[in-house]
């Protein structure tokens, strides 16, 4: 029971991270001018941080035991405020996560209680999933904690794609040996591959579908696959999204977390 609760909590948290990541990568402006690898990434991520967004997102988790579909709504403001609320299925509806800076609150309607998550609970991986909280909440670290090298440029569907190898700076708390990031010239993320320290690929997140949503090109379907676990994946599908909208302040409050006003 306790394990279930923690896992649920982590799942919500994860969902939040995913949404933040996907939303962020979509809300770009042109970075085509940037030539070196670091600035290509920096521009893409800088744009992501400043924006506000609202989206309806579906998460599909395929595991050996079956497939699970969750639908959630999310609001983000800058890089430090976010609210994610599950709306489907009924079993999970009402569960919500609020992040304010480094503090994370979780609301569980069955307990009718807001729990402030200890940092250590967040650092645990979500069992059976292809994501961990780890790589989601701090994606922006890929700018500051890595050195970047432009490996190649290629053309996919008429768009220029930069393939960048990001290697962690020595001493930074990053477990990956390297990451290979593909970014389209308009700032849309195409894929991120994670490699272990001996150079073996561990997992890859890729944009399966890039289409226009909320008035901009956006990776509407993103899938995380783990090497060595064929057929299993976690997929994020953005159903609808709005960008750069004015979000009322009350959205990111604990009272709204517990008693939704929208």
């Amino acid at each position, binding site marked *: 029971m306790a394990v279930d609760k923690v896992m649920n909590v982590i799942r919500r948290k994860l969902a939040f991270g995913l949404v933040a990541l996907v939303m962020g990568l979509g809300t770009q402006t042109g970075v085509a001018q940037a030539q070196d690898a670091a600035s290509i990434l920096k521009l893409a991520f800088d744009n992501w941080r400043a924006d506000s967004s609202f989206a309806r997102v579906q998460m599909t988790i395929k595991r050996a035991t079956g497939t699970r579909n969750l639908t959630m709504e999310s609001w983000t403001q800058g890089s430090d405020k976010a609210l994610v609320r599950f709306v489907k299925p009924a079993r999970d509806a009402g569960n919500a996560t609020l992040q304010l800076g480094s503090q994370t609150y979780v609301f569980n309607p069955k307990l009718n209680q807001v729990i402030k998550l200890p940092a*250590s609970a967040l650092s645990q991986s979500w069992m059976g999933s292809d994501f961990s909280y780890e790589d989601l909440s701090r994606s922006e670290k890929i700018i500051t904690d890595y050195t970047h090298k432009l490996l190649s440029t290629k053309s996919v569907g008429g768009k220029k794609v930069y393939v960048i190898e990001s290697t962690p700076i020595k001493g930074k708390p990053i*477990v*990956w040996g390297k990451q290979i990031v593909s970014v389209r010239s308009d700032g849309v993320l195409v894929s991120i591959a994670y490699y272990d320290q001996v150079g073996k690929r561990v997992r890859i997140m890729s944009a399966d579908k890039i289409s226009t949503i909320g008035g901009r090109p956006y990776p509407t379907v993103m899938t995380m696959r783990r090497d060595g676990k064929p057929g299993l994946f976690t997929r994020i599908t953005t159903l609808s999204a709005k960008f750069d909208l004015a979000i009322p302040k009350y959205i990111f409050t604990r009272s709204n977390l517990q008693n939704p006003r929208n």
Partner: protein
Amino acid sequence: MIDTLKTFGSLAWRNLWRNSRRTFITLIVVSVGLWSILFFNSFMIAWTQASKQATLSVLIGSGQIHAPGYMDDPSIDRLMQPPDAALTKALNAPDITAWATRLQLPGVVVSEYKTLPITIVGVDPALERKVSSIPGKVVKGRYLKDVSDDGIILGLNLAKRLKTGLGRRVILMSQNVEGKLAEQSFDVVGLFDADKNTEDFYAFTGRTAEQAFVGLKNQIAEIVIVTPDTVNVDTTVKNLQAAAPKLDVKSWRKLSLFLAASDTFMQGFIYVWLGVVFALMAIGIVNTQLMTVFERTQEFGLLRALGMKSRLVLLLVAMESAVMIGVGVLLGIVMAAATIWWLSSGVDLSAFAAALEMFQGGQVLYLKYQPQAFIQFSILIWLLGIIVALWPARRAAKSNPVDAMRRLT
């Protein structure tokens, strides 16, 4: 009276050699019986001692000192300052072999593949070598160099579960002094081979390296002490408690209730087991004694017919038994002592290391003489042998000499 005893002494001695085969069998039964009791007693005690020692020497030590409340909630909020002058003096007392300070904090270890909960132990390697067996169990790489070594030592099984290895880095996370999440990259410099629990739940780094990692100045989580077997650890605990009244001093019996319980259980078990062995040996000795006395019913009848008092017949039998069993007991003591002496340099069980790991047993047993057992069991066997012989002898001596000679009794 002295003359009678002298006569009976030589009579008894001759009787013993009149049927040397019978005497020989009794001697073997008694000596082997006593030898097995004494040897197994020593062996079992060495075994329990070794397993206890092996378990304690991993991390627990003979006792530990913590800040109050740390045992219930081993978090960064329940730490203590390094020992002050009074406590240091108490720790340097002659009945404490060694002591070391540690910073033990809960955390998680992250590799490319997995995130697992662990206890991060910051140690002072020079002191740790004297209190813990972990430094000697590093099978790959090296142990920590000094107190500021920021490498990390992982258990073999943990490294396997994390799919990491020597020379790679892992990320440790723990709560820092401000209550926020601290994370830092640590290079895996060594892997240790201990029991699975220890391998899975403990990772070791330099103490000051860990203090820097979580933002501590010089607070520690515990002081571990080691006392020799001969010292009563409760007295040591009392002395330390007096030197540091505000801290929580506990002996290993309080720290590891399971170990204390199993220690008590094993002590009881040894006695039960020895009781069983003793009963079996006693049956063997009784049987032989009964046989030898019943065989001589005719002889006792003849002695009675010649006018010997039944009391003196009993005395004769008692003297014979006392000498024979006495020699057997002495032989048994010598055999047991020789075996224990031969094995006292250590019985190496490392061939069964894998099987023993399950019991957290020691791999080398050091057998010791148990003087109390030597005296107790020897006297018990000796008395038992004599008493048992007297019963059939009494029947023979009390019976009608004619019937006895005709073997009617």
